[in-house]
């Protein structure tokens, strides 16, 4: 069992015996934040080596990433991306708590987007009604879609990681078809739905043009997950099942239902992201446009890096947001290919997996 899915093993609470001083140090070393931070630092070093090997200058490259993502001009955009990545991180983190991997984020995302586009685009209702309706609809549809994987696992023994993986491209293809033919905008050169009416566009935050109320909705979802995970019976059951499925079943946890709920919640989170993306500029669903930024994998990465812990997700999401948004800036001003940010994301995850083990070993040794 990796501590990725069992905070208790490495959790902040776990004290270490011995002199108080040593105990403090050990406790500090086992703070859940240590692993991610270590992973990131190491990853950045490895990335630097790669940049050097390519005959480029890591310092300017990283500087460009930071400034590109955090310069005042682009903060607005960066925040919106941060929201999307947090949303997709939720879609991965909720099942991760019970030891399941949701690799179907793309399908859930586009289904949500499509639902929102249909509702918001066709219901001639005032914003205060149609916008919540569209978001809710997206959550429901994507939630239902995500939930399919649960019975597939409990009834047919098809691992969720596999079924989500196989279902996703099917959903993407279906949405692509709908956007191209029945729901497509006539005369458009690419497959896309008509532009949403003014009323049906997500409320802006002040004069920000990217970050809108959608960001707040996603953050709200995060808070809810955090409460459920840390304080609720369901959250506890999620972690128990993640640690030992048979133990959970024996203890009276309805594992099947739990999986259903977790996958539905995950799908819903992704669906909400899709809805928010569609209801933000350019206010329409364009074939492939929701997937191409790769928020799904960035979110998965952020969730893994956080070990599914809700409290850490916003932090780890920052990392992948900066890598995403800053990656392009790095390409511009430091002439380091954009793909390097993918490399860094990959390295972070790998290093994290390995660091987790070292951390886990330390726990084992100092346990008892």
């Amino acid at each position, binding site marked *: 069992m990796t501590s990725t899915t069992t905070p208790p093993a490495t959790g902040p609470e776990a004290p270490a015996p011995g002199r108080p001083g040593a105990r403090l140090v050990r406790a500090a070393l086992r703070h859940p934040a240590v692993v991610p931070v270590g992973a990131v630092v190491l990853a950045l070093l490895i990335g630097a080596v790669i940049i050097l090997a390519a005959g480029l200058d890591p310092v300017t490259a990283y500087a460009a990433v930071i400034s590109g993502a955090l310069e005042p001009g682009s903060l607005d955009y960066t925040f919106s991306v941060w929201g999307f990545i947090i949303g997709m991180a939720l879609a991965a983190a909720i099942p991760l708590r019970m030891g399941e991997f949701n690799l179907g984020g793309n399908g859930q995302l586009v289904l949500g987007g499509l639902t929102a586009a249909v509702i918001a685009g066709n219901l001639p209702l005032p914003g205060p009604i149609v916008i919540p309706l569209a978001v809710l609809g997206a959550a429901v549809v994507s939630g239902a879609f995500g939930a399919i994987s649960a019975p597939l696992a409990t009834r047919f023994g098809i691992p969720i990681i596999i079924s989500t993986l196989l279902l996703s491209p099917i959903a993407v293809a279906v949405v692509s078809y709908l956007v191209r033919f029945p729901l497509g905008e006539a005369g458009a050169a690419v497959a896309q739905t008509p532009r949403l009416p003014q009323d049906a566009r997500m409320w802006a935050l002040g004069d920000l043009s990217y970050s809108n109320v959608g960001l707040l909705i996603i953050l709200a979802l995060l808070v809810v997950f955090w409460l459920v995970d840390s304080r609720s019976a369901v959250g506890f059951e999620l972690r128990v099942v993640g640690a030992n499925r048979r133990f959970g079943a024996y203890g009276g946890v309805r594992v099947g239902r739990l999986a259903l709920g977790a996958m539905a919640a995950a799908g819903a989170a992704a669906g909400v992201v899709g809805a928010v*993306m569609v209801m933000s500029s350019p206010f329409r669903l364009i074939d492939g446009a929701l997937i191409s930024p790769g928020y799904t994998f960035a979110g998965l990465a952020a969730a893994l890096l956080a070990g599914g812990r809700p409290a850490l997700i916003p932090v780890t999401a920052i990392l992948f947001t900066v890598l995403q948004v800053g*990656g392009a800036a790095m390409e511009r001003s430091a002439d380091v290919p954009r793909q390097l940010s993918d490399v860094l994301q990959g390295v972070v995850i790998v290093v994290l997996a390995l660091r987790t083990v070292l951390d886990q070993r330390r726990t084992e040794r100092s346990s008892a």
Partner: protein
Amino acid sequence: SSSGGASSTGAAGDGDNANSIILITPTPIGSNNFLQLASDGAKEAGEKYDASVDVYESEDPTSIQQNLDAAIREKPSIIIGVSFSVLDQFTEAAADNPDQQFLLIDTSAENPTPNLTAATFKEYEATYLTGVEAGLLTQKNNVGVVAALDTPFIHRWIDPFYAGAKSVNPGVATSAQFVGGDNPFGDQARAKAQAQILADGGVDYVQAAASGGNTGVFEAAAESGFKAFGVDTNQCLESPGNVVDNAIKRVDVALVNSVGDILDGTTGGFTSYGLAEGGVSLTGLEDGVADSQCLIADHPDVIEKVAAVRDQIVSGQVVVTDPLTAG
């Protein structure tokens, strides 16, 4: 995958140029040779009018918007947007920034503001001509198209091709295969498989409209003996002996002209570059066919006929319908 952003592709000059151009692509240029052409054209224009050139490659609509904002902050002489995908954003931006000059390539707004110039192409006229060639050359009376995706815009390389072929060979059979998949504009393996299917189906002349995937189509041609048509540039050079001709698209020409006009102060409206304007053509109709490595060079008779059709289109005797407006 990283989000929208920009790449300074060897600016024609450094900061101290008289003018400046920023080109925004809707997707990474990658293996999309049309976008490649656009950025080459921009650089050419840069050379010609002493302008620094920046190319901002977007990943998705939001990053298009973000690149556009970044570009507007830079206040360049001209911001160029390529393809229909940037239309929404550019139309709005042009309205909001009356003092900034915008240029749309390959798409145009319904009622543009005076600071929004557009240059579109009539690829379909050129594809009609490759169709004519195919119709004349086919022995099996069976021609086809391998296209990247089944989108309205991409039908500009399909329907006119059929029409052209039928115009000279009414009995000819036609069929199309779409690459699709995760990487429709670059998946040579799938493109090749699609071409193979056409070949298995008895097609002996194939219009390759799969962008980066064309390489795969040419490989299939080499292996199973059919002949292909390229697009945008002279792709005969990529696979000599397998490519008959190309529906070329003079993005560079159009871009340089439009930039010139704008810098001279003639802005707004849109020019449509067809056969008449020399914005699109066939390699076979240009000078230097002989050493173009294109098979068409061996068929002067066909070239003659095609040239005739070209003249009819230019003179308006023949009207090629645009699949886009045809719906």
